[in-house]
């Protein structure tokens, strides 16, 4: 009874802002409730380009991050356990260096020769993706590491080796498929963080979703509410899938034991 009451009161704190935003998002047309704000948002000539650019950045980040983190976690688990504390320390750095400080340093390091990478929009974009990859390390490493702990990496590797597989085959055809749930959660978490990222994209003058949204809140009345609801739905979808596949896999493991 008391538990229910406490739960209810605290839930309200979280549901009211969502409800209020949703209500405003339906008020795009005078005196009627409707989806006008959403229609206007999607009709905005800047929205879809920003959205698709952010999606492409996020996908590129995820692929690059997987290519870097999976071999690292694999080698650290199997071959170089001595490196583990160093790798874990580095994966803490994104929490130690605030995004605003990181972008400050990035600009200072890469905006003049010999490391001039901010000269054009596209080179800045590549730089942005690389920074996102580094920021994804904590989430990706933890996911992949948990995945590797759940399977017997050594036996799988030795079995593959005795059948004549090389390291590439082992990684792509044995390890990847066996930790796909972990890979997917790391990927989705990275997606949720990168898709609407503001701070770094803003100071690198990128036309991605984060800066677009910040601009929208200053220039439009109803569209920002529709935008916030869309962003919430994306985050919810990413987290929902993580939960769903996580539960599925733990059930499967429980059944086989």
């Amino acid at each position: 009874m008391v538990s229910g009451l406490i739960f209810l009161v605290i839930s309200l704190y979280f549901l009211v802002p969502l409800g209020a935003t949703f209500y405003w998002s339906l008020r795009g047309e005078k005196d009627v409730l409707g989806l006008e704000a959403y229609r206007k948002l999607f009709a905005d000539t800047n929205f879809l380009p920003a959205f698709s650019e952010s999606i492409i950045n996020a996908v590129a980040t995820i692929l690059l991050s997987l290519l870097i983190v999976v071999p690292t976690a694999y080698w650290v688990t199997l071959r170089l356990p001595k490196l583990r504390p160093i790798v874990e320390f580095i994966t803490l750095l994104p929490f130690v260096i605030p995004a605003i400080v990181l972008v400050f340093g990035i600009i200072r390091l890469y905006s003049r020769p010999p490391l001039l990478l901010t000269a054009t929009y596209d080179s800045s974009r590549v730089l942005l993706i690389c920074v996102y990859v580094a920021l994804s390390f904590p989430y990706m490493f933890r996911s992949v590491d948990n995945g590797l702990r759940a399977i017997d990496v050594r036996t799988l590797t030795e079995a593959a080796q005795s059948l004549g597989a090389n390291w590439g085959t082992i990684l792509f055809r044995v390890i990847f498929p066996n930790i796909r749930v972990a890979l997917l959660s790391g990927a989705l978490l990275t997606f949720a963080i990168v898709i609407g990222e503001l701070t770094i994209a803003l100071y690198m003058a990128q036309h991605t979703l984060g800066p677009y949204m910040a601009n929208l809140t200053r220039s439009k009345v109803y569209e920002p509410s529709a935008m916030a609801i869309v962003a919430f739905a994306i985050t919810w979808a990413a987290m929902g899938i993580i939960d769903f596949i996580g539960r599925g896999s733990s059930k499967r493991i429980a059944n086989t034991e």
Partner: protein
Amino acid sequence: MKPNTTNSKSVNPVGGAKRPPRIAIGHWLGVLPFFVFSGLFLIGPTLILAYRSLEGPEAGLTLDNYRQLVNDTVLSAYSISIKVSLTTAILGGLIGFVIAWVVSMGDLPPRFRLITTTFSGVAANFAGVPLASAYVFTLGRVGLVTALFKLLGVDLYKSGFSLYSFLGLTMVYLYFQIPLMVLTILPALDGLKREWREAAENLGASPIQYWSRVALPVLTPSILGTMILLFGNSFGAHATAYALTGGLFNLATLLIGQQISGDVLHNPGLGYAVAMGMVIIMAFSIFIYSMLQRRSERWLK
């Protein structure tokens, strides 16, 4: 738990023993991209700030820039950042702990726990522009709750409330701080063993005695550690505050943003020192967090 992860060279019949040099290079190739990326995009940028913060107007290294941190603009930005972070860490920590306790040990159906963890995962990652917008539509000048209060005869903004103030920012930050506490502290609560409670009860302890003498002492490092994590989470936050106030509020992160856009401190070196000051505070809090986490693992594993 981790069979044979040490001693890999002597155990493995195919790899190390036959061709040690080539394989050893192969090992390093596997981890090399990770170190290169971390070096280029995390450590390098931070080191250049650290170096520049030690540069004076003339040649040679100096602590001058750090001495100048003691000025009104910088100190007030730091102190508001610290105030907001302390408040949201303590409040977020307490409220988050209560929710975690209610859904894991209260008399609610297990479904509530699932809803809470999923929602917390979403809300903890829902920072930035959308969150700021949501609060503008709720408690901004024309927000829904502001309007409801007006209907009840209370004009929030005339009675001194503002979303674009310390109080407003605290409320907004709690939206991601509380869920982060829930997500981090739930596993610790799960680690409390049933046997401890039974043992305490068998020895005649009341529920209050069990909590004050057994459960809380075991949980304290986790609770404190997570609160410090929340402190860092809020201290380094930039996007939400930027979106809410247009970057003009006096916070350390926003001050750095203004410094990037156009040397508002009229001293580039001081800007670097402000940035490094943040890194030092963050490093300190993450360090204490991991120490406390290690301590709590002694019991809760």
